[in-house]
């Protein structure tokens, strides 16, 4: 297990490197740059600005300097567009916010989804089952950019219960709507995956054996059926955790939470390469780490899996 983790981490490093190089060159291909504007700058001024950010250097030199600064100084460079900020600051500012409501949505989606799924599977073909399945499917059709306006319309404009946006240091009134908006569609998927997985497990031979020897169904569900039920759920949860953090663009736009999603899209639209690359590296690294954790959790849940 230890060596497996070590090996995976060793593979992760070149993966992230490749990711950075690929993103670096893809951005170069895109037309326009951070300093193209409707009124073109005089060439001398442009040359000066580019020299200041090192954009006049050959590409390989730029790439090398970029890596050098990250590895040696842990410095992701200055932002090209927001003149007085650097990428480290932007990430340090936005990431905790994304992480807070992202984690909360992830927990909410998992708890509600798994509970619904299990309730539906235990009472298979009852009204609970039908209600849970309908709820799951309806929730799946409501991704965060649809839930955003619906929630604001209901709770801010009609009922006037919750503030329409802002972060305010993460007070709970400001957290509720972003968390619900982000969690809904994942909750639906998790509920459906849990339900079908549980149904399959409840038909398995070892559950029949447990029934035959007279165990109460509570013991069967919690001690025997739970772990194998959660296996497919876990493999779904890994990517969801990363998506929750990356896919939060709309939450940031609607609720003005100020998370990283907004910086990410803005940097892509304004060609703020430094921010774009920095956020990409962060997300890439997160993906690799979360994938590793998912695989390890898999081994813990299913003793048949050996690495």
């Amino acid at each position, binding site marked *: 297990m230890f060596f497996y983790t070590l090996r995976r981490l060793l593979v992760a490093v070149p993966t992230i490197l490749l990711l950075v190089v690929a993103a670096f060159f893809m951005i170069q291909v895109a037309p326009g740059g951070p300093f193209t504007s409707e009124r073109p700058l005089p060439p001398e001024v442009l040359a000066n600005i580019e020299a200041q950010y090192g954009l006049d250097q050959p590409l390989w030199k730029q790439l090398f300097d970029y890596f050098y600064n990250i590895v040696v100084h842990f410095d992701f460079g200055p932002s090209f567009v927001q003149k007085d900020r650097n990428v480290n600051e932007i990430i340090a500012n936005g990431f905790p916010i994304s992480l807070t409501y992202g984690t909360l949505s992830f927990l909410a989606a998992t708890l509600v989804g798994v509970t619904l799924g299990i309730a539906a599977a235990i009472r298979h073909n009852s009204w609970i089952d039908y209600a849970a399945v309908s709820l799951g499917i309806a929730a799946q*059709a409501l*991704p965060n950019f649809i839930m955003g306006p619906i929630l604001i319309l209901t709770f801010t404009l009609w009922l006037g219960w919750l503030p329409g946006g802002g972060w305010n240091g993460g007070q709970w009134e400001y957290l509720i709507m972003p968390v619900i908006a982000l969690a809904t569609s994942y909750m639906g998927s998790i509920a459906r995956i849990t339900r079908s997985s549980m149904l399959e497990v409840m038909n398995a031979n070892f559950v029949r054996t447990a029934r035959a020897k007279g165990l109460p169904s509570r013991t069967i569900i919690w001690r025997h059926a739970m772990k194998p039920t959660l296996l497919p759920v876990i493999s779904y949860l890994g990517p969801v955790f990363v998506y929750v953090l990356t896919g939060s663009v709309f939450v940031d736009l609607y609720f003005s939470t100020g998370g990283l999603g907004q910086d990410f899209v803005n940097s892509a639209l304004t060609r703020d390469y430094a921010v774009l690359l920095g956020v990409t590296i962060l997300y890439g690294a997160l*993906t690799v780490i979360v994938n590793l954790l998912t695989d390890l959790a898999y081994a813990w849940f299913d003793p048949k899996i050996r690495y």
Partner: protein
Amino acid sequence: MRTLGTSKRAAELAADVTDFRAVRGRSLFRDAMGRFLSNKAAMASVIVLGLIVLFVLFGPFFAQYSNEEIDWTRMGDIRGQGMPSFETGHFFGLDELGRDLYSRTIQATRTSLLVGLIGAAAALVIGTAWGVIAGYYGGKLDSAMMRIVDILLAIPLTLVLILILVVAGRSFIALFLGLGAVSWLTMARIVRGQTLTLKTREFIEAARAGGVSETKIITRHILPNLIGVVIVYASLLVPEMILAESFISFLGLGISEPHTSLGRLIAEGAGTMNYGTLWQLAFPLFFYVTIIITMFFIGDGLRDALDPKDR
């Protein structure tokens, strides 16, 4: 005493038993079809989706206005005069610029359906080819191909889509290419896994022992056995593609005017929901949610019908 004679009725029954007709063999697909047809939720979804397709095809004949025409007389007061009504001929009301929302919704629904189908088809073709080649030939080729998939999966989807749309310009083709380019990865993984297990089965060994060529083994023996998994996954991809396109259009990066899609209409409707023109959000949202939900039910129905594990 009763005689052990022949009873007329028993003889008839016996004749029925011996009178067997040659029963036509039931193929796997006939079986699956039967199961799908008896799935009420899936069949209801097929009907609803069919109605939406009919609406998209024949709806334009009933439109009083085209999707580009601006109703100048009413555009000054959309909240008061732009409501959905049969009298004015704007069945779904007006959008923010005074265009007929009925025509716009039809146009948007058509775009979204096309995006879903073409995106899923692109993912299906690329993903299946990639997965079969990696899984069948194995070894170094396999690890190289799958490493590429892993790396691509680690790149945030939004970044790739935004970059493709920025590099290639905003057009239908770029959008389809972009969606296809990001969506085949999971398909490739699933197909590869399935190919790996198929490859070790006896009938493949038999084919190889019989001297069947590699390409023939792939096309005749492996691909047909993959169809079930591939169809199920592709049907689940269709709503995902529609969602992804809405996501992109919502950011203002997808389809550009005068074309439109449901994601764009929803974005526009959400932008004006403060002004009391809720129909601008309601109609596109209704079509969108209906399409997604029916697609999910159809995908589930197909999985139940085709997946041998759940029988």
